[in-house]
């Protein structure tokens, strides 16, 4: 028996509210997704306004306050999370670092997802020969150690935010490419694709209008998982000295810098670590919600929940 309520002859469903209101209502229905959205909004606000407001404070050294412990309520709120090995307030640094971190991670994930998906769609739907060529290209990227690639490229081009984004994006392309291609190969045999072909739809239309929307939820899940991976990969590069260069900061770099003080001052690595965890967790929860909210056959789960709660 199917769990989806099917409409029988003669039933009239009430009119559906407008799209933005529906989505807000569905977001309200899933409290985890709501919390995740709020956290992500805070992170974005931090990234946009942080450097302008707190840039100076975050860079100002204060050697008397080296490794100041957190939860010292007598000092200003910027010191509540303690200070790093040069006495700079951690809270301010985390807020300022949000911009670089999010730029690198979002940039790399978006670039690799866009390029990977596009190539994957082509590889899956185009002729065999084109598909094979693209797949071998992916194999080359995958068989090349990504760290080695990063070292070479960044050594030649010089470390900067943009270059780090490019390097990370290239190494992550095969993930999207392979997933997309595999899904396309399956979906292109489905009947609604045949139906579109019978109508005379162009390949472009079939791929973008009929196949991509079905692949998208999977890709979104991968992208959010990748977000965390990219943040950590960036910190590894920074740790090697070829990623983001101090005095610029990212969360990954802060963790790396705090590592040597871990036994005496755990908070140096803990807070930026927490920021990474919260961000990626929120992204995961939100993408999970989106997967359901964007699927017309699943949407009722959220709408039902909203109704029983409200």
């Amino acid at each position, binding site marked *: 028996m199917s769990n989806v309520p099917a409409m029988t002859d003669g039933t009239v469903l009430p009119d559906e509210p407008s799209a933005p209101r529906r989505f807000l209502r569905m977001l309200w229905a899933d409290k985890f997704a709501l919390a995740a959205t709020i956290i992500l909004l805070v992170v974005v606000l931090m990234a946009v306004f942080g450097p302008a407001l707190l840039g100076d404070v975050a860079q100002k050294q204060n050697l008397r306050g080296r490794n100041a412990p957190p939860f010292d309520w007598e000092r200003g709120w910027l010191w509540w999370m303690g200070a790093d090995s040069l006495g700079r307030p951690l809270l301010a640094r985390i807020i300022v670092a949000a911009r670089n971190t999010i730029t690198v991670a979002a940039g790399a994930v978006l670039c690799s997802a866009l390029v990977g998906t596009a190539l994957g769609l082509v590889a899956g739907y185009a002729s065999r020969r084109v598909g094979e060529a693209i797949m071998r290209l992916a194999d080359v990227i995958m068989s090349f150690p990504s760290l080695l690639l990063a070292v070479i490229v960044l050594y030649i081009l010089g470390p900067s935010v943009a270059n780090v984004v490019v390097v990370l994006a290239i190494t992550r392309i095969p993930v999207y490419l392979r997933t997309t291609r595999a899904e396309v190969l399956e979906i292109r045999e489905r009947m609604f694709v045949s139906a579109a072909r019978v109508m005379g739809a162009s390949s472009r239309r079939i791929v973008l209008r009929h196949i991509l929307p079905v692949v998208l939820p999977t890709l979104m899940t991968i992208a959010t998982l990748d977000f965390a991976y990219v943040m950590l990969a960036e910190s590894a590069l920074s740790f090697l000295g070829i990623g983001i260069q101090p005095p610029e900061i990212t969360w990954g770099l802060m963790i790396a810098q705090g590592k040597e003080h871990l036994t005496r001052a755990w908070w140096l690595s803990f807070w930026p670590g927490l920021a990474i965890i919260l961000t990626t967790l929120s992204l995961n929860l939100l993408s999970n919600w989106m997967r359901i909210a964007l*699927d017309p056959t699943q949407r009722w*789960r959220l709408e039902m929940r909203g109704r029983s709660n409200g």
Partner: protein
Amino acid sequence: MADHLLEVRNLSVEFHTAGGVVKAVNDVSWHVDRRETLAILGESGSGKSVSTAAILDLIDMPPGRITSGEIRFDGRDLLKLGAAERRDINGRRIAMIFQDPLSHLNPVYNVGWQIVETMTAHGQSRAKAQAEALRLVTRVGIPNPAEALRKYPHEFSGGQRQRLMIAMALAMKPDVIIADEPTTALDVTVQAEVLALLKELQGETGMGVVIITHDLGVVAEIADRVVVMNAGEIVESGTTRDVYHNPRHPYTRKLIGAAPGKGEMHAPLSTAEPVLKVRNVMKTYGTFKALDGVGLDLMAGETLAVVGESGSGKSTLARILLRLDEADAGEALWKGRDLFRMSPVELFVLRRDLQMVFQDPTQSLNPRMTVFQLISEAWVIHPEILPKAQWRRRVADLLAQVGLRPEHANRYPHQFSGGQRQRIAIARALALEPELIICDEAVSALDVSVQAQVIDLLNRLRREMGIAFIFIAHDLPVVRDFADHVMVMRKGRVVEYGTVRQVFEAPRDPYTQALLAAGLDPDPDVQAARRAERLSVRA
């Protein structure tokens, strides 16, 4: 009250779904005795499988909940037994045969292992079980039984797999066999054989058989008594003959009335120049000859039925005519121009004339598009048909034409029932104002009463709009009231071609005769007469 072999009393089962509590079955009672066959007849969603699922403890709880009733077997109420006792009864005393044997056989073990396992799971020694497995496989009529035991499920045909499922179910010599749509996935000729096998085995072992089906023909062929279910309730029960000849409940009457193959046969139109001339089409997949010199003529506004069992090449023919697959050789002249050799540009124009309605509307409608988007996509692709300002109005017109309401345009396909979805698919095909619609098994996934409605709709469209149809089906009765000409295919070849009347009343080819004979008539008396005839032929 005499004790029955298996009795369900006042059973009610609820499911908790998003739409609230659904009463899957409500106060249902039936029983089956030794040597007796009970049919539970109902359409999809009628709750016909739920009571047997309760017997075998197959209902997931939650979301399901048995709210009242008892299931008496051997003087005990099954619902009050513990899980271990239930398992001991399941498979050993009450066995089940499923609709789709391929998904119920494990693909990584050979069938011998699987049959033996059902016996060893109930405590038989392996050696004895193996000997018994060989006997069973021989009994259900699998060729080369010893070798067959070492083969894997995919190496058998659909009918053989169903025979193997029966062998597995019989392994522990059960008292009751429950068969859930055992022949629905099978070809007509194979269906008749499997039903005959079940009947024979029942005669040998004296077991009670409960058969769940939507098909009046199956009921007429095999059942002694029948209960008719609708919307979770039993609306009628009695002996098969009684229910067929004197149906009391309106639903039963509707169901019997909807059975295809009783209406007036069409006389074909006067001969005109054919719009579609297909000659000598060949298609091979590897070494398999899917189409071997197929040809046909189709007049404008005429309906040609293409009938054949699975593997006969009828769907391949449809795909090739629509250029979803390429033919290896042959020609298909559409208004004098060979559509196998058209350039992409010519083909694009041709798409407006030739449309297709697919077998399963659940799969042929993109689940992420609204009805409006699905239908108007035709005009996005062919913008010359209709200016955008009129799309809304035209979609509403088309929906009205296929018997849906204009306000359905903003819904998604999953919000409709199977029959309604097929109407949407038809509306989509009509949006291009085609001259020929190819229906590939367009009604075989639908319930009988819905099937009749969809065929009525197609009939009306043909009368009012003069659309020609190529109607592909695996079942002859469905095409009887609808087609002008019938073409019977077998193994990629046309074995018979003629007007409906010729094919149904005087079939020339032995295969067509076999196909007609294997089709099950909903009238139990007709079936009984046919069975007697078959026996006398054999004797």
